[in-house]
């Protein structure tokens, strides 16, 4: 009986497998092709940045006479180090402050009971889909009224607050067992100490995932720094290369060298943390 049932199945399996082999091959090839399409422009950027002026628009990917002159030129013509430092300082500040605030808020929303908690959560939720580009005009008017135009404060503070991080952390804290905090509560620990010495260490995996995402997002942010800063001392790299592009229009080897410098930190970060980044985005949808 069991044999009779198993045999036709095995046959189906075998024929299906035989049919699948060429299909599988085609799918593999498609994966390779699409992956190449995804990364080829980035390789081309690096390639152009290493080519001398007379070679930039030749079609060879590997430069015949590779040179670092383009990078030297970029760093001597523009105060690029200053821009890189500004970008790092702003992105790191936003990331650290945002994670502290979001963790506190997420903990309170998940764990502490106080009147109005659900209303506050709803109000925060209502800002979820609002991105900076939509409110750029009133945000600029407001920042001007607060006297924060053209300052580090203006670059950093308005970028700290977003509902996404709060929700991710709240969700994470809802899943932490209560027993740990209860023991501490009975021992007489205050809420701040519980948050600082129990909750924060427990949330290291999600905090590090969010830290990477926040840092990348802020490093790559262009519209707000462009809007809020006017003095060159405060430029971030994205504003700097956009302006470099307008100034040196046509000198593509220099522009690509500058682009490579700007993109390198985020690409390197991605290569190092790819597993964590991919997992955290994969699981951030709804189910």
């Amino acid at each position, binding site marked *: 009986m069991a044999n009779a049932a198993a045999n036709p199945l095995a046959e189906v399996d075998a024929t299906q497998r035989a049919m699948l082999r060429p299909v599988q091959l085609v799918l593999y090839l498609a994966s390779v092709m699409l*992956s190449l399409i995804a990364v080829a422009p980035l390789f081309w950027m690096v390639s152009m940045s290493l080519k001398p002026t007379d070679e930039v628009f030749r079609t060879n990917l590997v430069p015949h006479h590779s040179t670092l002159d383009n990078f030297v030129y970029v760093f001597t013509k523009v105060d690029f180090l200053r821009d890189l430092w500004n970008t790092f300082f702003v992105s790191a500040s936003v990331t650290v402050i945002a994670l502290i605030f979001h963790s506190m808020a997420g903990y309170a929303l998940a764990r502490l009971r106080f009147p109005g908690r659900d209303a506050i959560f709803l109000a925060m*939720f*209502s800002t979820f889909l*609002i991105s900076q580009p939509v*409110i750029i005009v009133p945000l600029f008017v407001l920042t001007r009224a607060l006297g924060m135009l053209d300052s580090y404060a203006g670059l950093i503070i308005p970028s700290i607050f977003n509902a996404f991080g709060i929700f991710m952390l709240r969700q994470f804290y809802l899943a932490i067992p209560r027993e740990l905090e209860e023991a501490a*509560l009975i021992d007489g620990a205050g809420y701040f100490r519980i948050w600082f010495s129990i909750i924060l260490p427990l949330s290291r995996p999600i905090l590090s995932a969010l830290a990477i995402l926040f840092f990348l997002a802020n490093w790559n942010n262009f519209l707000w720094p462009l809007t809020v800063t006017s003095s060159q001392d405060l430029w971030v790299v994205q504003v700097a290369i956009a302006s470099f592009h307008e100034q040196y229009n046509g000198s593509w080897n220099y522009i690509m060298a500058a682009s490579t410098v700007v993109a390198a930190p985020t690409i390197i970060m991605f290569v190092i943390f790819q597993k964590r980044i991919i997992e955290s985005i994969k699981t951030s949808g709804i189910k």
Partner: protein
Amino acid sequence: MRPSAAKSIGLRDVEASSYLRPRLSNLARERIAGYLFIAPDAIGLLIFVAGPMLLSLSLGFFSVSGFGEYSFVGLDNYRRMLADPLFWRSLTVTIIYVVALVPLLYATGLGLALLAKENSRFNTVVRSLMFMPQTVSLVVVGLVWQVLLIDKIGLITRFGGVFGLGSISWLGDPRFALATVIAISVWFLMGFYMLIFLGGLHDIPREYYEAARIDGAGPVQSFLKITLPLLQPTSFFVLLVSTVAAVCGSQTFDLIYVMTKGGPANSTSLAIYYIYQQAFLFNEYGYAAAMASVLVVILMALTVLMFLLTKGGRFTYG
């Protein structure tokens, strides 16, 4: 409220003893801690997100000078909007962009996710490579694609020459510029939606597919009868988020600013870019805010939809 509060902080067993008196102050302490913990983010969101949201709804009724002087003008900005051909143009461009981009992102995201669905070392690399464009700034993306598409000498323009398309100016011809921007947006965004779809696909129990196979269902049938129906929540999420991204994602500004400045012949003048132009190039803050308020209202409606969809803001992690 109080008994349940005591119950869930686990003091029920000891409440008869010496913990009875501190219990009341515990409750007060918890409340105070709650407000203090939530305060920084609540105040920040109020000032820097909710504030501008509400401000954008009211700023449209004012005329704002470059120096920050306001005068009430009633519906003037909205009337001007209706009579502004460039506003209608940017609205049309935005609608075309959204209508093209959302299905394309759905198809490419789902297609790539299906392609890289099985967990293997090969697919891990494929997923990373597909996602790689997302980690690069949009300014760089715009610059790199611009250089690839330069008339006559750009790499892709030359490649098009093989098919007799060498004379096309991808970003300089009003007939092609918007399509080119859409293609670049897909290239940039598809990796993100692939990952969201992968999360959804991996939640479908394997047994369903095995059972279907035993019943004689082919790959197409099991895709139509199992994958698509069970993927519904993910699909809704993707459609919603990609719609928002198509209306006002940062690529709607960054790519346009770097590559086309809204041209040629306003063919890539997306709403976000036109609003920026009006505000920061022509100092028409009130008029720009009036146009933005239309987008804010659309987004608020989508947020309500999203709230219902996530059953009250339930996002999952890990």
